[in-house]
């Protein structure tokens, strides 16, 4: 009877997993690492940042890391892509999309001897760790540059969706701008898409028409920067150093530094007793989330010095979201002398005064 095996198998699986969790996770064989890329490796933004990190991590671990491109956020495509690697002996699988979260959770249960990591994911387990950067730190620094360079005091921000990780970059951008110009405002246009250059261009043009003269962004293509360059105004990039696309307009960028996080993390996996954080990894500038790629020659030295001093302070432990912080409606969101906890970041649905946005 085949059915009789199931309880035994289930006990073995859960028991094995529980033991592994308690003692940390150890690979049964030397690590063989594979990436699943969400888009193609030259997308200019999110995925290309991983590709650039992969090459650097290869050097620092002195081993080959393979990848597959364009795996959409669909279980029917993620599972076969991951299983093909696993069947070929790969035992560290790194995903790169929010939409992989649930499938990676299932895969990590099915393959308890394989280590899974997933960028911008939401699921974790004994052999699964999601990771994302504290992008508000670098966007705060970019906001400082934007606030200092704006003549009108009107900044724009092209954003994708009003969710926690986007809302915190918007608030941090305005906080940085206010530090340099107490009257600065940040007007936000949500495009409703991560990767729609048509809508991004329309948003950036509408901003320029309104007299906005520095455009920040949390969308995937460099379109807002290119529009800024066409209109003779400035911008700040996201994902990578966007001076590549708009050398005159892009003042600085909030750029991923995944190699700084992944190389030591993968070394821990290789060494054994890897302990994935039950709430996911959340590295800042210091540990390798994002950092500011600074700065365009148009930015005066005293501004750069101020920004770099803040960067040093953040690395030394300064927390940007330290109270008292009130939202637009006047509700206190962070009490005086307290700072926002990680849960508060992920569920952020409020904006600070000075942010101009639709509801």
């Amino acid at each position, binding site marked *: 009877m085949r059915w009789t095996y199931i309880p035994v198998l289930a006990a073995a699986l859960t028991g094995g997993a529980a033991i592994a969790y308690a003692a940390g996770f150890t690979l049964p064989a030397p690590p063989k690492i594979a990436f699943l890329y969400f*888009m*193609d*490796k*030259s*997308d*200019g933004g999110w995925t290309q940042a991983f590709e650039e990190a992969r090459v650097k991590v290869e050097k620092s671990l002195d081993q080959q890391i393979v990848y597959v*491109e*364009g795996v959409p956020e669909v279980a029917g495509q993620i599972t076969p892509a991951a299983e093909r690697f696993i069947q070929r002996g790969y035992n560290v699988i790194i995903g790169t999309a929010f939409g992989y979260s649930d499938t990676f959770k299932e895969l990590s249960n099915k393959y308890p001897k394989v280590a899974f990591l997933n960028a911008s994911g939401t699921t974790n387990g004994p052999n699964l760790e999601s990771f994302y950067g504290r992008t508000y730190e670098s966007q705060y620094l970019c906001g400082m540059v934007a606030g200092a360079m704006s003549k009108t005091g009107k900044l*724009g921000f092209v954003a994708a969706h*009003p969710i926690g990780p986007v809302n915190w970059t918007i608030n941090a951008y305005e906080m940085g701008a206010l530090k340099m110009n107490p009257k600065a405002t940040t*007007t*936000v*246009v*949500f*495009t*409703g*898409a991560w*990767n*729609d*250059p*048509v*809508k991004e*261009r*329309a*948003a950036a*043009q*509408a*901003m320029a*028409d*309104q*007299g*906005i003269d520095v455009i920040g962004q949390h969308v995937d*293509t*460099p*379109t807002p920067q*290119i529009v800024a360059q066409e209109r003779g105004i400035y911008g700040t990039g996201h994902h990578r150093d966007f001076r590549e*696309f*708009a050398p005159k307009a892009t003042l600085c960028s909030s750029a991923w530094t995944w190699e700084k996080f992944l190389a030591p993390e993968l070394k821990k996996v290789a060494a054994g007793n890897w302990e994935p954080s039950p709430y996911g990894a959340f590295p800042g500038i210091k540990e390798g989330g994002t950092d500011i790629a600074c700065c365009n020659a148009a930015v005066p030295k005293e501004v750069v010095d101020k920004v770099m001093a803040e960067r040093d302070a953040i690395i030394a432990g300064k927390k940007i979201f330290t109270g008292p912080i009130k939202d637009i409606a006047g509700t206190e969101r962070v009490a005086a002398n307290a700072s926002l906890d990680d849960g508060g970041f992920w569920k952020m649905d409020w904006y600070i005064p000075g942010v*101009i*946005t*639709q*509801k």
Partner: protein
Amino acid sequence: MNLGDFLINWIANAPVTAVPYALAALGLIVAERSGVLNLTAEGLMLIGALAGAGTSLLFVGHPAVALLAAMAAASVVSLLFAVLVVVLRINQVIAGLSVVFFCQGLTGLIGTLAKWQNKQLSGLAPLKIWPLSEIPIIGRIFFMQDPVVYLTILIFIAVNFLLFKTMLGLRIRAVGENPGAADAAGVSITLHRILAIVAGSSLIGLAGGYISVVSVKLWVTGMTGGRGWIAVALVVFARWAPWPALAGALLFGCIEALIPHVAAAGIQVPQYLMLMTPYLATIAVMIWVGAKDSRGSQEPGALGQPHVREERR
């Protein structure tokens, strides 16, 4: 910033948003008038966008060459669809969808291998029709658009003439309305359907090329973002007639251009309401079309049916 400036900036940006919808919908109408249900717009627009961007990078400063390349590339790829549905008589829905998926993969692959992604294109300068462009308000809205906007109107006039005033147009419509009768009258079904698909696809390619070369000035994988599907809906909405399709495209262009302008002006409107307005408009117009009596519809009688000579139905 006063209301007048706001309205001018908004309306002046509407044609750029409307042109891809208008051209793609017109291309689909040409093919569907010959009785071929054409769902390939999203894929062929991507082909046009990629070919236009690539050509624009290779021949810098010649946007016209890039747009012609976009038209040619989409026509060539549409031959595949034409062979599938007209010669091999494969189900037109399935063939159309497979062509879209094929084009999505192919354009992503070529764009990556050729390293065309995110490279800025030279674009197409707006055409100032002097002295009309100096008229306040009207000049900015009507006489300072890019040349393709004006070309689109000419294309609509030409296609309308071709479809409804020439023998060729009559034959294409006859093939779509009653292929049995057309066949009996000696009109080649295969030839006219392939011709309609390829000619229509060149307009769909132009729509895609316009997005990458003129509007965004950039190639990004999957950049059409579902606009081909909106064109498919526009055809139904316009009941297979060219001028209503142009009106529908302008309506969508106005709505899509309004969304960022309202947000950038800091007007407090719930943004999810704004983002759903194009779809609300679609539903509203569909209800209006459905409620009107259906005699006005010019839906081709043999739409979606492969023609087999002397087959009993």
